[in-house]
């Protein structure tokens, strides 16, 4: 059993720090603001690591602290459940958060919203910890909505920029669409299970399946578990930027870069993957839901990779990469390789946060410029950023021994091992071709930034320099993660190791033996990590990097020729498959038209003009108008008449009766 006080302190410290700095930030000096928040998050990280080591030793925790809502059988407690899955999430969240806190000290220095920013990111850390540590669906939902709120506030952090405000609103509303699904799923869970508690719900899934509850949805019959899983997955799609709810994630890059790293790459957007893994005891009982997860994940992984190929904004390239990599994680979960999905979540958190922070370091150096066409040769000026970003890029591309290789390779193998019909084949194609595209767009961005020709405007040039230590130290720390997290996970922790049946996650994840791709891999024999030279993904990644090298370091007129040769495709990708335009035309404008129509035609023309002004009421109104013009005390007349009326009616009825 773990120490309750220690567990409570982990989310409580960032919350308290956030409240202090949020409420009294106006009175605090920059140094005090960041010391309080960074300090508390670092302590949280240390405690999380401590908890993690205890969990490794077999400890766990489960308990409720108080009752949030209660009405008859509707009982919503607030409690915690600490197991292997939670522990992995806790260290990922707190360590990345601590790095981002330190980095922010340098990055946001001198910003008028300095302490506000620190209050937000500490508040975010609290919310994310609640999300992962809760022991029931409502505690999860509390964290879920709270991270959404902080994300909204941070995307719109520079509130003078119209584009930032629009992106914030868009993020919140698209997320609410997902939340709608999530909420429906949670209601259905209560309806069928009578509780929100993970343990009780998961324990009763087989019994519910045996009872054979079905729902009819527009003529489509599905089991209760399928309905619940699909509804929850809609929530995951919103939060984790999956097609067609991905449109908010690239726009969220309007926020300051540290939060792009923390929220929109490493932690919050992975909440959907975490939730699906957490609900593995339910998803395992629904083939339909698993197929949906694979399909959506594969489409996202592939589509967002294609968009990433041509983007010119350094942060947007990485953002589309994030969507794509989240798709990989969902594909892993969908083929029942939850442990692999979570493993990729963990490695991705390190290398993607690093990629963003390094990009932030670059943006800082070139005075806020984000267009990679206006960079180049920066390696001469910022060696540490250059090397750390190279590490992150290699990790993302999946080159051994960097972190991404370990997890991505296992995803691809799992997809190959699991038989899922055409969806499985499509997913295999998507993740495999995705490897090539990932390597290409990552190194296109990398070469254009650090190699290629020097295209930095003269004005900026004098300012070019390596970032201060407060920025480079977190980069180095995260680079260690991007280098070693993969090997450590497979070789040290036995996360997702096909050769060990139980694995690291133990019973915190549930997989039916007949669909466990890791078991299938173990039976059919799979290649060891050291045999990467014989695997297709490795060569695809190398090919992608090679092509990027050829196009952006050697034959630099090639990209232009390519773009001209395939003009329609290039335009299509550059415009991100026209998703924004599609939503603008099919949802936003029609909703506004409908709203206007209901208001003007429904409320004003029909009800007010037709019914009020037209009918009997209208004539009374006209009469009133005359009364008003004589300015007598109309109200008192009314009151008097009313009292007389009441008693007159009473008298009449009494006499008659």
């Amino acid at each position, binding site marked *: 059993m773990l120490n309750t006080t220690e567990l409570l302190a982990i989310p409580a410290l960032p919350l308290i720090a956030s409240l202090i700095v949020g409420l009294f930030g106006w009175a605090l000096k920059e140094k005090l603001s960041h010391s309080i928040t960074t300090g508390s998050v670092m302590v949280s990280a240390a405690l999380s690591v401590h908890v993690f080591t205890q969990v490794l030793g077999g400890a766990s925790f489960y308990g409720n602290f108080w009752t*949030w*809502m*209660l*009405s*008859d*059988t*509707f009982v919503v407690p607030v409690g915690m459940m600490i197991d292997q899955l939670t522990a992995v999430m806790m260290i990922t969240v707190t360590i990345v958060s601590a790095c981002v806190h330190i980095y922010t000290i340098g990055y946001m220095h001198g910003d008028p919203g300095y302490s506000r920013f620190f209050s937000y990111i500490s508040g975010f850390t609290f919310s994310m910890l609640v999300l992962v540590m809760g022991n029931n669906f*409502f505690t999860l*939902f*509390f964290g879920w*909505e*709270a991270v959404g*709120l902080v994300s*909204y*506030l941070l995307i*719109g952090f520079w*509130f*003078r*920029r*119209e584009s930032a*405000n629009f992106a*914030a*609103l868009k993020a*919140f*509303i698209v997320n*609410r*669409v997902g*939340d*709608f699904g999530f*909420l*429906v799923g949670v*209601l259905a869970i*209560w*309806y069928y299970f009578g509780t929100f508690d993970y343990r009780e719900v998961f324990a009763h899934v087989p019994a519910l399946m045996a009872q054979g509850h079905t729902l009819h949805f527009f003529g489509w019959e599905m089991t209760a578990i399928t309905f619940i899983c699909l509804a929850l997955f809609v929530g995951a799609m919103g939060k984790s930027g999956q097609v067609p709810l991905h449109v908010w994630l690239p726009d969220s890059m309007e926020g300051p870069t540290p939060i792009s790293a923390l929220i929109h790459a490493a932690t919050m957007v992975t909440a959907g993957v975490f939730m699906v893994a957490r609900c593995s005891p339910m998803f395992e009982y629904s083939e339909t839901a698993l197929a949906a997860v694979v399909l959506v994940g594969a489409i996202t992984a592939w589509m967002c990779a294609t968009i990433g190929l041509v983007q010119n904004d350094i942060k947007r390239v990485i953002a589309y990469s994030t969507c794509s990599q989240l798709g990989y994680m969902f594909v892993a979960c969908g083929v029942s390789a939850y442990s692999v999905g979570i493993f990729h979540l963990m490695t991705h958190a390190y290398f993607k946060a690093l990629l963003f922070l390094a990009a932030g370091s670059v943006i800082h150096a070139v005075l806020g410029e984000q267009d990679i066409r206006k960079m180049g040769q920066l390696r001469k000026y910022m060696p540490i950023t250059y090397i750390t970003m190279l590490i992150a890029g290699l990790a993302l591309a999946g080159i051994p021994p960097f972190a991404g290789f370990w997890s991505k390779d296992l995803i691809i193998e799992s997809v190959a091992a699991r038989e899922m019909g055409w969806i499985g084949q499509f997913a295999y194609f998507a993740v495999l071709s995705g490897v090539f595209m990932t390597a290409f767009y990552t190194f296109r961005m990398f070469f254009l930034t650090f190699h290629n020709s020097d295209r930095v405007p003269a004005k900026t040039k004098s300012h070019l320099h390596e970032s201060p230590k407060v920025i480079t130290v977190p980069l180095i720390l995260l680079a260690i993660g991007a280098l070693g997290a993969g090997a450590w996970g497979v070789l040290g922790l036995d996360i997702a190791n096909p050769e060990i049946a139980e694995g690291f996650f133990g019973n915190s994840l549930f997989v039916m033996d007949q669909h466990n791709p890791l078991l299938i891999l173990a039976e059919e024999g799979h290649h060891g990590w050291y045999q990467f030279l014989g695997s297709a993904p490795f060569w695809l990644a190398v090919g992608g990097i090679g092509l990027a090298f050829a196009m952006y370091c050697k034959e630099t007129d090639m990209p232009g020729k390519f773009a001209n040769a395939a003009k329609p495709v290039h335009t299509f990708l550059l415009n991100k498959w026209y998703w924004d335009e599609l939503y603008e035309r099919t949802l936003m404008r029609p*909703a*506004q038209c*409908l*709203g*206007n129509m*209901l*208001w003007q035609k*429904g*409320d004003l023309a029909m*009800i*007010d003009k037709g*019914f*009020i002004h037209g009918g009997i009421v209208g004539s*009374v*109104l006209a009469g*009133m*108008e005359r009364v*008003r013009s004589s300015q007598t005390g109309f*109200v008192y007349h*009314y*009151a008097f008449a009313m009292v007389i009326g*009441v008693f007159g009616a*009473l008298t009449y*009825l*009494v006499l008659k*009766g």
Partner: protein
Amino acid sequence: MDLNNVLGFPILTWSIFLPTLGAILIWLFLKNDTAVRWASLAVSVATFFLTLPLWLSFDNSTAHMQFEEFHPWIEAFHVNYRLGVDGISMPFILLTSMLTIICIVSAWDCIKTRVKEYMLAFLILETTLIGVFASLDAILFYFFWEAMLIPMYLIIGIWGGKDRVYATIKFFLYTLGGSVLMLVALLAMYFKAGQTFDIQALMAYPFDFDWQFWVWIGFFVAFAVKVPMWPVHTWLPDAHTEAPTAGSVILAGILLKMGAYGFLRFSLPICPDASQYFVPFIVVLSLIAVVYISLVAMMQTDMKRLIAYSSIAHMGFVTLGTFMFTQQALEGAIFGMISHGFVAAALFLCVGVLYDRMHTREIGAYGGVVGVMPVFAAVMMLFCMANVALPGASAFVSEVMVLAGTFSADQLYEMVISSKWVAVAAAISVVLSACYTLWMYKRVIFGDLVKAEVKAMPDMNMREFAFFVPLIVLVIWLGIYPLPVLDVMHASVANLIEQATSSKLPAANALAAAEMLQHAVAH
């Protein structure tokens, strides 16, 4: 339990008439505006403290009426002065006494003409509102219900905006039209049930289905106008827009709740079979309120009108929960009314703060307010998020409980369509409320500071901040720890569900009604 003896004096009577007594004294003895303000504040605070024991010494374990008082009044017509509260009405009395204080404080500097009359109107309004919630005699209820119109009419008509006359007349006609039918329904019951206006006696009397049917319709018209439900809602945006800030606060905070309270106190227990019969009808109107009204709210260009429409949408949740006859849905509906009393009141106060500076409610006239009023922006953000029903705010508790109660309602009885899909349709509000609330917030608060008038706006002063503090505390407190309020309701709501789900018809009639119901279902 008769707590009169415990406390030693008739606490409800005092709560009702102390504001009026204070108003009379102020009217007689005070001339100076400042003195009037302070005296009114003192009276409203005293009333609040007087109502506090209703909650503190409330017995949560029983559904019986508490703090009961009884005096014969008009004996010829069996009209009695009977007061009492249960777990459904008591929270509204506290809500009234609290919001009245906030109304008086919020009007402190903004009302410059006829200060005395303004304060008197609010104190008298408080009397009538507490009276409505404390009455256990139908005529007494009706008396307070109608009397409430007079101060409200004056508040909008004298201190309102430029189209106030149109708004007041519309408000008046609508409510008057509804009240007349309620009076007819009350009289019909009076004679049918053996000449009694005692609400508890009426609850117990076995009206047959036809009586219930017509009486229910009479009540429905009166209450639906007050809630207001689509399509009798158009008076509310006008009334809100033209009312002074405090008028909007009390209108959204308390007046709207009277309609839904009427459903709980009259329609459900007195006409249970008719209530069951009309469930699909109410469900449709409630869903229209959630979806149609939300879309209309989104397109508003006037902040007050937008919040008024948002109120109607939120009340759609309340009416939906009221007619689901499950513990969660009903408690969620009542809790939603209380929560909305704080959130809508706070949003109207926010608009009031802006209006006092710019004298316009047009969204387009603002932009970039956060640049000059950061504290205000933070406060308004909090209440906007509460309006969106984010967890941690009180509105979330009610929304989730209504949805849960609705989702599970078909375990209890058959509906035309499964109540699951009703809950799913109502849950669309999760998206729509975010659209209209945050879009308005973005246009008003965020953006670059370019307008000269906006640049000149000072941030909130201490007085303005002061009336937000209790609302902030309450919205968050009830959001994370709603049990003290929910506990009060459990017994009374359980009792109400018992009343509303047990048919008053003899077995044969019940069968006929069931056939009618099926008939209705088939069509």
